[in-house]
């Protein structure tokens, strides 16, 4: 599972893509994915907000994530 990273998320991870592989229990929902990410990189827990996009739509925590989905971490937006 590849996760696209933008803005401060890219700085926190140090890459522009975060790859999750070989896990015994890979995250199956957006909520599980958020927990996984915060455990891996605690600095995500310090952000004002943390959203996940699935197939370029904002996704709520109960949404399932599948291998073929385009997944992205959306740190607090600041356009305009």
């Amino acid at each position, binding site marked *: 599972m590849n996760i*696209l990273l*933008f*803005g*401060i998320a890219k*700085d926190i991870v140090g890459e522009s893509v975060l790859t999750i592989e070989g896990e015994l229990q890979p995250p199956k929902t957006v909520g599980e994915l958020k927990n996984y990410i915060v455990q891996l990189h605690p600095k995500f827990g*310090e*952000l*004002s907000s943390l959203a996940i*996009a699935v197939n*370029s*739509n*904002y996704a709520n925590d109960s949404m399932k994530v599948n291998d073929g989905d385009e997944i*992205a971490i*959306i*740190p*607090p*937006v*600041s*356009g*305009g």
Partner: protein
Amino acid sequence: MKIDIQIVSKIDTTIAYEKLSHPESGGVCVFIGSVRNVTQNEKVEALDFEAYEKMAIKEMETIANDALKKWKLNKVIMHHVVGKKQIEDPVVMVGASSAHRDACFEACRYLIDTLKERVPIWKKEFFENKTVWVSSHP
């Protein structure tokens, strides 16, 4: 096309009226956001914008379509930059045109407010001795 959405490396402010003018419109309202030289009393040297382009376009389309449902509009534009921008450079341009001015003013305000809330674009501020991703931390 009623809606014109773009992510660009440079905003052309001169085309706003041409994009929004319409024979049934008596009013056009445009908002342009630009790089200002100070934020919270600190001198800003530049801004750098990064976008999740595919999703940013989709979100801007949703916002523009919501505006078309809320108000009777003839045209809507939403343009946003990516890349490094200097003081006074335009970074976002949104606008609407309508028969009467209430609708275009209200819609224009809605477009920029909602863009800032939802559209996946990130702004890094360059100060003399540091850089900051805006709004990242409480």
